[in-house]
């Protein structure tokens, strides 16, 4: 009991805070250059400055989506018991509040091709930022304002956003260490 109450209350607070000003998402069927992109209109104080931003599709591992190809009622009935996975997905190591959470806290049991919020509302993988925003409300707010995360495009026009999961693996969200580019050369000293 105690285990579920904490994340739920957390999520309810986050939802109450962000429910009113959610990012308006409208899936555009086809655009010329970015076929599979999702168009997002970030909330602006003035409706006049509605900018078009695009998000590339979520970074699925090769051949895992749609999940329902394996996870359907007949082949693989859902097992709601919390357990370590052994037969499949055993490469996924959860390092993201793993004490309190497991797969089905974000992945939907009934519709495997979607995720779900704490409220039970299902959410497409393209809108996974809404799941993250339930707990990381501050980051979510910054992301929508264009201040958290990488942007590409125009400072006063169309720009490309990234989903949270493009940089933070949802299972191990810590940003990976990188190999730095070579150090600058030290200044030359005149020969004596």
């Amino acid at each position: 009991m105690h285990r579920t109450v904490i994340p739920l209350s957390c999520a309810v607070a986050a939802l109450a805070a962000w429910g009113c000003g959610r990012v308006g998402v409208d899936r555009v069927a086809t655009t010329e250059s970015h076929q599979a992109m999702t168009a997002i209109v970030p909330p602006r104080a003035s409706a006049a400055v509605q900018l078009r931003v695009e998000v590339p599709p979520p970074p699925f591992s090769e051949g895992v989506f749609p999940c329902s190809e394996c996870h359907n009622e007949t082949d693989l009935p859902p097992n709601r018991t919390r357990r370590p996975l052994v037969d499949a997905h055993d490469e996924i190591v959860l390092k993201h509040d793993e004490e309190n959470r497991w797969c089905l806290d974000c992945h939907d049991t009934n519709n495997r091709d979607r995720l779900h919020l704490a409220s039970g509302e299902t959410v497409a993988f393209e809108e996974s930022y809404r799941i993250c925003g339930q707990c990381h409300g501050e980051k979510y707010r910054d992301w929508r304002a264009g201040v958290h995360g990488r942007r590409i495009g125009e400072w006063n026009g169309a720009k490309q956003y990234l989903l949270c999961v493009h940089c933070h693996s949802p299972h191990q969200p810590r940003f990976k260490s990188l190999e730095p580019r070579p150090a600058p050369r030290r200044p030359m000293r005149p020969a004596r």
Partner: protein
Amino acid sequence: MAKDETVTTDVTRRQFASVAAAAAAGWLLTACGPRRLHEIPRDRLREAISEWERDYSEKYSQAVTVSDTGPMPGVLFAMALDLSRCNGNRLCVDACVTENNQSRDPEVQWIRVLSMDKEKGIDFADADPYYDPKEVPEPNRFYVPVACQHCRNAPCTKVCPVGATWTEPDGIVVIDYDWCIGCRCCMAACPYGARHFNWQAPSVPQGQVNPSMHYLGNRPRPKGVVEKCTFCIQRTRAGRYPACLEACPTGARKFGNMLDPESEIRYILENKRVLLLKQELNTMPKFFYFYGT
């Protein structure tokens, strides 16, 4: 001196005439001769630009365009950098070198990423730009990339004896590479070490030149002049983000118009903990460092 005593000078009528003629000729030459790029008439700038385009295209054997896009009205550019995100990977440096045709050998880099000790905080005396670990971020270090701060009260533009560097109306501090005499006074004046001198003729290998240039930005520099960050003037005046911003994998850099209340920069200034480098010098940088968390 007595009243009736006349003062005789040795100047003859002929001498006076020749000096006057020389002065007139000098004035004519200055008025019609070479000028700094910010006071040159538009048509002469266009002429110069088409000449440069021809020269550069020939030199690098590819089609080079030199833009003369001016500042947009109502725009004051500023950049912000999230110190809690930057992990010192130097990808911005690489992108900057490529975008702005910086010399590869000798090496000129407009961005310098300083590695600092978390215990000591921002301390330039202890900063290390030559860090070279296997992986970044290193434990107990944080990284402060420093390039031109585009100060509103820029000491570099004040000390230039020939007026070869100035602040554009959109806030970008630029250099006229043809007017610069290479005295390096601006480098001494800059408290951020943001200006770099071409001790030798800069070299950009064939095929690695960015052909999209701006006359105040990334066009090739000659030996003996000073250069520095221009907020990627060739990109930002065309509405795009600077190259360093797009290259940053952590999304630490933010850029925009300080006069637009809806811009990312204004959001940062209004909602985040923002600091300036060497604030006590009253240079009033338009480069803000902030903590995103």
